[in-house]
């Protein structure tokens, strides 16, 4: 375990969890690096607060399908609610999207308005004029958002994207190209209302644009959700940072995933920052926020007894300053006692990553009518959720399968499982639980279950 920080008042700290001992000839190094932002951002000179220097864009689907149910009314209420909570002085704009995108507000030729009593009123009035008509071309909405954000020098740029349908009036390639063009320019939280949108489509946007994705099955919940998204965006008062990973000559970064609070595969987002280093954009941070990253690095094995620096993780602030570093090491040994131990953090998150995959594959198989695969995958998911004590995911799994034996992963697919339940499970499959500190977890659990024998703290997973 390695801890480094830049001294008192460091804006970020990083800590490595790994078993650095490898057997002779082994070449795969696994490590979990926990990155934490300082609770008091004022302490870290370079990472000063910038609450006003931000721009918000709200993208509302107004395709024809939004006219069914209460969706368009709920979307209008939600967009207005978002406008209500945008802090004074923050730049904001509203996009209405169907088979094309239009700037709903401001209407006076500006790219952005500025949150004030008058501008909020004007924006709400424009939102009130929205009507549901037309198709769905999400890529065009992103294109317009990108053009707006390109015109602002705001340090923090955030969008909310709401849809109720598939990207029907565009090819998948056009959407992918639009997403790629937005990468690094702004962060985007995506929401699907109803059950006729594609989880995978929105997830591809939120993953690339460092945001969240969720289902809002009940339109009445939209307004509260929009308020919450704006609030958490405004809480990300620390400027965007990158994770730089140096690995030695000949090494290959097999994967780099954020694994807490949710799984986000960042591997493909690497940009070169020197022949032996690559940067991964992490987006903005809230003071006191903690995220965990799991990386696998394939190295050229050293001889028994040799020690190698397999990776150096640096947090790079937007001005190029290195805020903190953590080292990932490899030491080759012929002592199997040492090399076969698995670090509990690596084991835990390996299990959480498998859990997310098992759910996504299981739901996909169920949708495709492959009941056998769906049963196996969702059974495995139940097993992993039980092992890691992931109660939220377990609850969602129980909406889709009947659990006969969680420990062995024996389940039956629920005959009349609701589509919304399946989509909720899929959307939230990437959310992980953290591994508690052994000392803390060893404390007696809630007194509600006195008969249960102590579980020995957080269960080890991924065995």
């Amino acid at each position, binding site marked *: 375990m390695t801890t480094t920080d830049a001294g008192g008042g460091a804006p970020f700290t990083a800590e490595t969890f790994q078993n650095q001992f490898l057997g002779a000839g082994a070449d795969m190094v696994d490590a979990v690096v926990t990155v934490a932002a300082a609770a008091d951002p004022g302490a870290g000179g370079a990472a000063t607060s910038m609450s006003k220097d931000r721009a918000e864009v709200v993208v509302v689907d107004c395709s024809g399908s939004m006219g069914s149910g209460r969706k368009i009314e709920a979307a209008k209420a939600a967009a207005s609610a978002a406008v209500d909570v945008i802090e004074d002085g923050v730049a904001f704009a509203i996009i209405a999207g169907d088979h094309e995108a239009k700037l709903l507000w401001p209407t006076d030729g500006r790219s952005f308005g500025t949150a004030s009593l008058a501008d909020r009123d004007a924006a709400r009035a424009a939102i009130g004029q929205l009507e549901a008509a037309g198709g769905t071309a999400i890529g065009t909405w992103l294109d317009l958002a990108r053009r707006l954000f390109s015109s602002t020098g705001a340090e923090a740029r955030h969008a909310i994207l709401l849809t109720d349908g598939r990207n029907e009036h565009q090819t998948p390639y056009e959407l992918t190209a639009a997403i790629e063009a937005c990468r690094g320019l702004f962060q985007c939280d995506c929401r699907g209302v109803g059950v006729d949108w594609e989880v995978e489509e929105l997830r591809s946007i939120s993953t690339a644009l460092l945001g969240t994705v969720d289902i809002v099955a009940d339109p009445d919940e939209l307004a509260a959700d929009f308020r919450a998204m704006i609030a958490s965006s405004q809480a990300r008062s620390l400027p965007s940072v990158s994770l730089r990973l140096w690995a030695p000559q000949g090494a290959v970064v097999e994967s780099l995933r954020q694994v807490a609070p949710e799984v986000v595969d960042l591997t493909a987002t690497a940009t070169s920052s020197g*022949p032996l280093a690559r940067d991964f954009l992490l987006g903005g941070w809230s003071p006191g926020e903690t995220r965990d990253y799991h990386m696998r690095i394939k190295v050229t094995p050293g001889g028994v007894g040799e*020690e190698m*620096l397999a990776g150096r993780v640096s947090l790079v602030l937007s001005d190029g300053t290195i805020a903190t570093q953590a080292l990932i090491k490899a030491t080759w040994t012929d002592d199997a006692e040492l090399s076969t131990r698995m670090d509990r953090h690596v084991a835990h998150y390996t299990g959480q990553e498998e859990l997310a995959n098992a759910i996504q594959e299981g739901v996909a198989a169920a949708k495709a009518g492959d009941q056998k695969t769906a049963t196996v995958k969702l059974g495995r998911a139940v097993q992993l959720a039980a092992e890691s004590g992931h109660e939220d995911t377990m609850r969602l799994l129980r909406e889709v399968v009947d659990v006969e034996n969680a420990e062995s992963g024996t389940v039956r697919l629920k005959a009349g499982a609701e589509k919304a339940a399946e989509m909720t499970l899929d959307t939230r499959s990437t959310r992980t639980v953290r591994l508690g500190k052994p000392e803390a977890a060893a404390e007696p659990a809630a007194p509600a279950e006195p008969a249960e024998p102590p579980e020995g703290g957080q269960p080890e997973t991924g065995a």
Partner: protein
Amino acid sequence: MSTTATEASPCPACGEMLVPGARFCEACGAATGREAPEAAAGDPAVLDEAEGAAAGEVVGEEEPGAAACVRCGAPIDADGYCTSCGHRALEPVDVYDGRSLAYATHRGRRHHRNEDAGALATTAEGWPVLIVSDGVSASPNPHLASAAAVAAVAQSLGGRPFEGPADLAEAVAAAQEAAVAVPAEGDPNWPEDGTHPACTLVVVVVAAGEVHLANVGDARAHVLHADPAAAGGWTARQVSTDDSLAAAAVAEGADPTAALEAPGGHAITAWLGADAPKVEPHLGATPVEPGDLVLACSDGLWNYAPTDAAIAELAGTMVPEDGEPVLFAEVCERMVIWAVDAGGMDNICVALTGTTEEAAR
């Protein structure tokens, strides 16, 4: 010490100015196409930082960034790793310079930590005492056992009149007591499997005209004798007796080299620690002449110089020609570096002193 001074030139890959003589670019890690500096293989700069140790000074602080990687020649970063291949730079040799006696020790290349220990003392008569112990890797906390054993011997013999073999036997008994007292628990590198800390021991007292020694296990002592007729100017004779399966085989007529290479040849048959069946040190004395040197070492050195002839040859390359005063600390350090370069399979500890009147002060 030498990196060949070469004219400064840019990296062929990225254009960054290269460190003179570097085989890899510091900025991008690309090979520069230059040959390895000639001295690099036999004389790694990182090991040389301990050079010129002052009397009694412990040299062990790494000077980050100053060194080049012994594997690929790229610079070493502030954390002690190569900026190109990532390999950890070898730490400098720990050198303990007592002027008229000295020892040096190093982890070597393959062990995670240095489990060898050395110590120096002088008797009330001013006679030098060399103490070397090798912690047994197949036991818990061997580094604590060896350190405790050498400290106990130094305390037992240091500053007291030396009256002969009985004092050495008493010192070994003190070392055994100290090794037994080392806890078996708490070693992250060894499971708690019922074994106890263990180590070997060699102790040499260089008295007037004779050398007294005691040893348990396979740490060795040699007397080096200047002999103009010998190839390298020196002859050597081992004065300790190995407690090893190889030594037992040789005693029954086996070829010494074959015996050491045989499976289990290095297994020791006696050691200090709670699991030792019975501690019966080899005690002995042998006459020496003025100008002779006395060497004590762990098998980290003698594995690469397993015979008297090989030790004599090594001494010939390390000890200056006639007339030059012998700088014991420097010779110890060079011998340790030589063993690291030879492969560094084990921890290395080398202690050296002389027998002249001058050296004894």
